[in-house]
């Protein structure tokens, strides 16, 4: 026999001014199952909650209906109160008579009538509520960080610091990512390598951190707290455990015409290489596309083999195969980063026609002391010192067409100011022009930085856009552009042109998102669970986002987000088990057809099938395929309940019969 308590809140006059609360309490007291119906000034106050607690204890209530403000406001408050009095918290229902009644209606009679109906619906529902207990699911105490740039490194360090094992999976031969290629950082102009490489070393020396370089994630299964990832360690033809990073092999390699990817092809390297001096792990890698021996196809043939001869550690292994590692993780952090876009569709800037038209990232290498020119800024074409440099902003960013990206790449305004300033500082005889559409400098000390470029370093900022870049026979580059403020078309005889190229998510991001069942936007940036309130979590539980894979970001922002993602991951890893929302779907096996309709609509992959034996008449049995819901993964949307034709799938807290009871009560 149900014993339901009804509690009608005045909310001061918020409710009581338009709803006759006494009449509501009176009317609802006659509903079937209701044993007590009271009204009170403020139900959410301590006294109000005590009223409910006492009523539960004294009357042995089996269900509570609070007619008050929106459940989004105080459902939890009243659930806790009920639990404190020994009633299962899921036996509480709220009738929203404030936001959805007293606040929107003026006529007391009709508002009161509606409040009564809403109360009745809640009573009808609560009669069918069942006590629910949140389930638990264990958490594997290990995190996977995908991507070993500054974002991945920071996240891994923070998680390791908290005492958890972390694996970094990096597709390149070294960790460090884009930041390792950058020369100086804004707005402080400290050297990127000086602040990054110690972190790389720290990561490699931290015993909690395992770095899988030259590796990729090839499969991910499971759910929050319980992921299983397969990591493919690509063969680098060098035994990582033996290689000392001495570099002897790289010196003897006769194939020295390989475009140096780390320097963006601005110079060449050997077929066996260590990406850069501070690489982590400092281990050689052989590029099989260029290695004279490996290119042959048959490694047993007597071709070259000079690196193996030179290696005193015996680390070179031409027979090495890809290796697969399977590992369990509680949390996964995505830190796949970004790349500049290809500029093939923007050849009005002559990028493909003129070596002295470069991207900003290329300029970083050209200016870097470890770069192709040892830090002296020289034109790639003739290695002469440029005296006039034109920077073009927004190349491929903010585009409405298929050529570019619709978004602002965010970092270009600041790094261009940095480049301009560094050049003017080091080469005062070089004129620098920056063509901009808008200069966007929100960030601490950012605008001051940009102003310094203009006021202190006398960089010429011109509002307008370059329309055509024409390389000339005398080695100069004619830059035709508009100056919108003086309303004229300019021609600048430049020595170099630097294109602030739009950035885009790494190409590996999309297949990874599919693997992780996380969302992406149309630009292939990972979508956060909530744009404001959950910026480092993906909508898929247990998957976190770090750095530019979520959207364009500069280094300080990336590091901040990396640490935030780490703290979210740590918050998960410290738990031995996670509490699951009990309002999840469940399948009645006796009615389940095993047809897979529910599985098809489940956005979380929470539904699996198994063959089970069922009793049939005459002591026979039959094997049937039936669905089961993993309560740790299910988020309780209910899509499956409608896809299920037999009604075998139902949702706790919002069951078919509960909703139907509400419908009936409202339509009565």
């Amino acid at each position, binding site marked *: 026999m149900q014993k339901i308590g009804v509690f009608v809140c005045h909310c001061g006059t918020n409710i009581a001014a338009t709803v006759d609360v006494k009449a509501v309490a009176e009317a609802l007291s006659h509903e079937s199952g209701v044993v007590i119906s009271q009204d009170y000034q403020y139900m959410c106050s301590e006294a109000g909650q005590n009223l409910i607690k006492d009523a539960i204890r004294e009357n042995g209530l089996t269900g509570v209906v609070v007619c008050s403000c929106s459940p989004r406001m105080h459902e939890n408050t009243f659930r806790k109160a009920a639990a404190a009095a020994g009633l299962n918290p899921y036996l509480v229902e709220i009738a929203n008579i404030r*936001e959805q*009644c007293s606040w*929107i209606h003026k006529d007391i009679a009709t508002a009161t009538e*509606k409040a009564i109906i809403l109360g009745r619906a809640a009573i009808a529902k609560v009669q069918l509520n069942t006590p629910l207990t949140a389930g638990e699911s264990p958490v594997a105490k290990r995190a996977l960080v995908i991507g070993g740039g500054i974002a991945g490194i920071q996240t891994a360090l923070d998680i390791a610091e908290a005492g958890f094992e972390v694996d970094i999976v990096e597709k390149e031969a070294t960790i460090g990512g884009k930041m390792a290629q950058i020369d100086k950082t804004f707005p402080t102009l400290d050297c990127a390598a000086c602040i990054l490489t110690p972190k790389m070393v720290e990561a490699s020396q931290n015993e909690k951190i395992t770095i899988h370089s030259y590796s990729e994630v090839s499969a991910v299964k499971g759910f929050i707290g319980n992921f299983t990832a397969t990591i493919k360690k690509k063969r680098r033809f060098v035994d990582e455990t033996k290689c000392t990073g001495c570099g002897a092999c790289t010196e003897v390699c006769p194939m020295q015409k390989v475009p140096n990817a780390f320097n963006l092809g601005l110079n060449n390297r050997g077929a066996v290489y260590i990406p850069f001096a501070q690489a982590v792990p400092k281990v050689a890698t052989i590029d099989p596309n260029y290695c004279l021996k490996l290119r042959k196809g048959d490694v047993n043939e007597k071709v070259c083999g000079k690196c193996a001869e030179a290696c005193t550690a015996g680390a070179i292994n031409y027979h090495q195969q890809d290796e697969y590692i399977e590992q369990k993780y509680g949390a996964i952090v995505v830190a796949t980063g970004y790349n500049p876009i290809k500029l093939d569709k923007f050849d009005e800037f002559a990028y493909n026609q003129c070596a002295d038209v470069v991207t900003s990232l290329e300029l970083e290498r050209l200016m870097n002391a470890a770069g192709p020119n040892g830090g002296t800024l020289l034109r790639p074409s003739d290695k002469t010192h440029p005296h006039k440099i034109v920077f073009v902003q927004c190349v491929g960013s903010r585009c409405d067409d298929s050529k570019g990206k619709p978004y602002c790449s965010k970092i270009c305004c600041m790094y261009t100011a940095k480049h301009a300033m560094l050049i003017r500082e080091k080469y005062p005889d070089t004129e620098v022009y920056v063509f901009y559409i808008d200069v966007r400098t929100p960030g601490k000390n950012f605008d001051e930085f940009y102003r310094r470029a203009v006021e202190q370093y006398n960089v010429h900022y011109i509002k307008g856009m370059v329309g055509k870049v024409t390389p000339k026979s005398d080695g100069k580059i004619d830059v035709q552009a508009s100056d919108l403020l003086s309303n004229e078309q300019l021609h600048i005889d430049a020595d170099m042109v630097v294109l602030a190229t739009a950035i885009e998510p790494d190409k590996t991001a999309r297949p990874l998102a599919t693997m992780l069942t996380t969302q992406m936007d149309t630009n292939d940036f990972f979508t956060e669970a909530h744009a404001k309130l959950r910026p480092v979590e993906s909508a898929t539980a247990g998957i976190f986002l770090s750095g530019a894979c979520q959207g364009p970001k500069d280094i300080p922002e990336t590091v901040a987000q990396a640490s935030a993602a780490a703290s979210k991951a740590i918050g998960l890893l410290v738990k031995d088990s996670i509490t699951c929302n009990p309002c999840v779907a469940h399948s009645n096996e006796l009615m389940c057809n095993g047809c897979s309709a529910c599985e098809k609509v489940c*956005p979380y992959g929470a539904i699996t099938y198994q063959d089970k034996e069922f009793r049939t008449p005459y002591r026979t049995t039959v094997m049937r395929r039936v669905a089961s819901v993993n309560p740790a993964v299910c988020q309780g949307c209910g899509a499956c309940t409608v896809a299920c034709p037999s009604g075998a799938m139902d949702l706790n807290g919002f069951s078919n019969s509960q909703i*139907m009871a509400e419908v009936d009560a409202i339509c009565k």
Partner: protein
Amino acid sequence: MQVNDNKEFQPLIVAFCCNWCSYAGADLSGTNRLNYPTNVKIIRVPCSCRVNPIFILRAFQRGADGVILCGCHPGDCHYTSGNYFTRRRMTLLFSMLDFLGIERDRTRVEWVSAAEGAKFAATMNEFTEAVKKLGPNRRLEDLRCRKQ
């Protein structure tokens, strides 16, 4: 169906609202004191995709004159894809009801975000008016359930 003093027809409207967007949008129209008729009674569901066509038919059976379903805007679903399924299901259901000769203005789907309190109120006002014009639901009700 409700009949008030001046005997003007007062339709009964059942509104299913998803917890994350539309129910919050309804709350917001309350917070902003934006009026809509008392005819509208809201039932909270976790997601618009929780709404089974059976619920809608049940409401009509029991005497509802109009049923409206509100969810997050496509692309904004808290559960990523729920409202896309809703959209297909309801399009087909409404088309079928229309095919059976049920007045099409008795059913509606509207996407209302948690920020669109004004849209929620405006939608409810419009929908109530539209159903009022149609008069009582006669084509799809269970006579046994009609209030005497």
